[in-house]
């Protein structure tokens, strides 16, 4: 119920955050909204010795339309993404998905950067940024670098971020195709997706069908070859590694993936 003891450090800027991370090394973790990390710490599944609170790094809270792309500061909250009319216009997939994360209280605190850096394949936004083919910007002691969404998510709770690196920005090129859909299948509205599907144009990404978010490449190839939603969706489970757990076994998840991909493609088609 209570985290193990740790030392709290506060950063007011990205530079300060990086300095603190460098100083404390492996013992330190960044704390943004805290709604991925603190629950783990309260169950003592994560026991960092130092927390670097970046929640006051206001320079990372922004949402700009740069003409051909949208840039989002990593500390922008899910709530702000869900309520931004510009985002609803330009990237409705992201705006809509952000509005489905957790519950209202979680959305007030949780951030897009925090969610992506956590690397949970059952979370909604990792698959969404893959469907949007986003570019993630990370800053570390050696400077800034760009990482494509497809390379960012490595494995369960493992991303391409190096120790001491901070995710600072998410850049998304405005999509050519307006067709989008987000299908999040849960037992209860509050639950993590049993399976989820994010579609933007011809890109299809899957939530909770492996140890990281996955592009449904079989589906994408079929679509590119002219297949309709149902036929393309038959390929949904190819290349996936769905978990067996209380909410469903692999066979059920693979079936759900096909159903949800078909529905997502149909819905995206109606919006294109």
């Amino acid at each position, binding site marked *: 119920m209570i*985290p*193990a*003891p*740790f030392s709290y450090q506060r950063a007011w800027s990205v530079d300060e955050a990086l300095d603190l991370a460098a100083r404390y090394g492996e013992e330190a973790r960044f704390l943004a909204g805290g709604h991925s990390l603190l629950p783990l710490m*309260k*169950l003592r599944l994560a026991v960092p010795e130092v*927390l670097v609170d970046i*929640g006051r790094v206001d320079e990372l809270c922004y949402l700009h339309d740069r003409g051909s792309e949208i840039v989002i500061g990593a500390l922008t909250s899910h709530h702000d993404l869900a309520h931004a009319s510009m985002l609803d216009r330009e990237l409705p997939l992201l705006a809509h998905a952000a509005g489905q994360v957790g519950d*209202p*209280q979680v959305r007030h605190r949780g951030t897009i950067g925090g969610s992506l850096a956590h690397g949970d394949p059952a979370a909604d936004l990792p698959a969404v940024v893959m469907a949007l083919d986003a570019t993630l910007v990370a800053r570390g002691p050696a400077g800034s670098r760009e990482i494509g969404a497809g390379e960012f998510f490595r494995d369960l709770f493992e991303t391409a971020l190096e120790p001491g690196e901070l995710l600072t920005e998410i850049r998304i090129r405005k999509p050519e195709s307006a067709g989008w859909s987000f299908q999040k299948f849960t037992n209860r509205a509050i639950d993590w997706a049993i399976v989820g599907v994010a579609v933007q144009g011809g890109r299809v990404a899957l939530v909770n069908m492996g140890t990281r978010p996955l592009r449904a490449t079989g589906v994408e190839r079929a679509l590119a070859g002219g297949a309709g939603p149902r036929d393309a969706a038959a390929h949904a489970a190819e290349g996936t590694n769905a978990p067996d757990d209380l909410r469903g076994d692999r066979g059920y998840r693979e079936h759900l993936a096909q159903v949800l991909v078909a529905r997502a493609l149909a819905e995206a088609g109606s919006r294109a």
Partner: protein
Amino acid sequence: MKVSVTVNGNAVAAEVADRTLLVHFLRDVAGLTATNVGCDTSSCGACTVLLDGQSVKSCTVLAAQADGRSVMTVEGLSSDSADGMHPMQRAFRAEHALQCGFCTPGMVMAAVSLLAENPDPTEEQVRSGLEGNLCRCTGYHNIVRAILAAARGGAE
């Protein structure tokens, strides 16, 4: 570390362990025990308060994260009106939207935040707006009625 939070308009400051959760700061340091702890996985929402006007689960916020900020709990909702109650509290009573009362402070604060962001919600929007608040006693039926009544009455 030293943490200072403005709680219900009053400055509350204390030296606390770094790992102190905001909910315990409110209960044990500020002495405001209405806000309750109902779970340990950020699931139940009994600990919901407003942090700089937005509903948050105070069990999933460190007191340190609220340092220098302002928090409102259900004790801070009361007003100068004749019955001392905020329109949301009044609506909860009128509609029998509480039984044992344990989830109620968090539920009321979540409801206040819900209407602040969506002053005229549909029933469906109220229900999904309450996803983060569990109640075992009422079946939610009257809580939904109370919030819709408060919305009609123009509750802030």
